[in-house]
């Protein structure tokens, strides 16, 4: 396996983590303020929004770490092992968690769209849950294929 491509992907994984960290630090407090403006009678919405977004950052970083681990396995030529199946399974669960958490804040996007009369905002709100759902299903398919490959390989090892 060529090391260059996995090295590039490893760097990409790290680079993707940085803007999300910036969003967590700078954007989430703003969103909390916005939510209190939208729902003035419900002050604790601020904390709820912050909790949802910070909570979804945890599975995100865990998934990035698992992807990094997966790349390391590919480097070590142990891509077809139970270890990678486990990493893919973790990525799948992380993506499902993120998707569910972001569906929770979808009503807020609806309120915002209602107030601003901009129906497109709803679609913006649906991007994250939809994208993470796609990633979850993709990881599931890869997991199944990986299992199949492991079976083929173990069959090979047995005959030899």
């Amino acid at each position: 396996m060529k090391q260059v491509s996995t090295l590039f992907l490893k760097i990409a994984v790290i680079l993707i983590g940085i803007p999300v960290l910036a969003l967590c630090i700078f954007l989430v407090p703003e969103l909390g303020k916005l939510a209190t403006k939208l729902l003035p009678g419900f002050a604790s919405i601020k904390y709820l929004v912050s909790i949802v977004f910070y909570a979804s950052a945890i599975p995100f970083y865990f998934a990035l770490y698992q992807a990094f681990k997966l790349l390391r396995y590919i480097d070590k030529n142990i891509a077809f092992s139970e270890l990678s199946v486990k990493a893919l399974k973790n990525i799948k669960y992380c993506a499902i968690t993120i998707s569910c958490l972001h569906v929770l804040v979808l009503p807020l996007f609806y309120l915002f769209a209602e107030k601003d009369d901009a129906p497109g905002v709803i679609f913006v709100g649906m991007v994250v849950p939809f994208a993470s759902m796609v990633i979850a299903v993709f990881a599931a398919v890869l997991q199944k294929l990986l299992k199949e490959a492991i079976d083929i390989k173990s069959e090979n090892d047995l005959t030899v």
Partner: protein
Amino acid sequence: MNRWATFFLKGVIILIGMVVLGLCIFLLPEIASRDAEAHPETAYLQYPFLLAAYLFSTPFFIALYQAFKLLVYIDKNNAFTELSLRALKVIKRCTITIIAFIGAGIISVVILSAGTGEDITGIISLGFMLTFASSIIATFVGVLQKLVKVVVDIKSENDLIV
């Protein structure tokens, strides 16, 4: 192989294709004509711009079609064959072509706007972001291709023994 998973991914591919097709058909001509009205001095670029945009979207659609084919192979339990290797190779080439197109686009924007004093930071950074994303996809597909090749080799070895 779970049918619903590949079915879902197929649906996503069709959805993405339709959205991009819609953009190509409805939004791009609008943008071109509006820009031609706003800047009459560069109005002659209206149709070259459209042509370039459609040329640009062709490898994208080819890649989507190949991804769809790949899902069909997975459905038929044909994932570890030369066919899917070929599909992956085409996807990789399409992505590299898109990267080259974006690079050409950035260069032409820089040349065209030289001396006009227009702010092109936004469009350039968008171009770099797209380049970054497509190079990630190209590399990822390259890694997948190598992994699939390993399995295909093992499988053919198996078949020989049996």
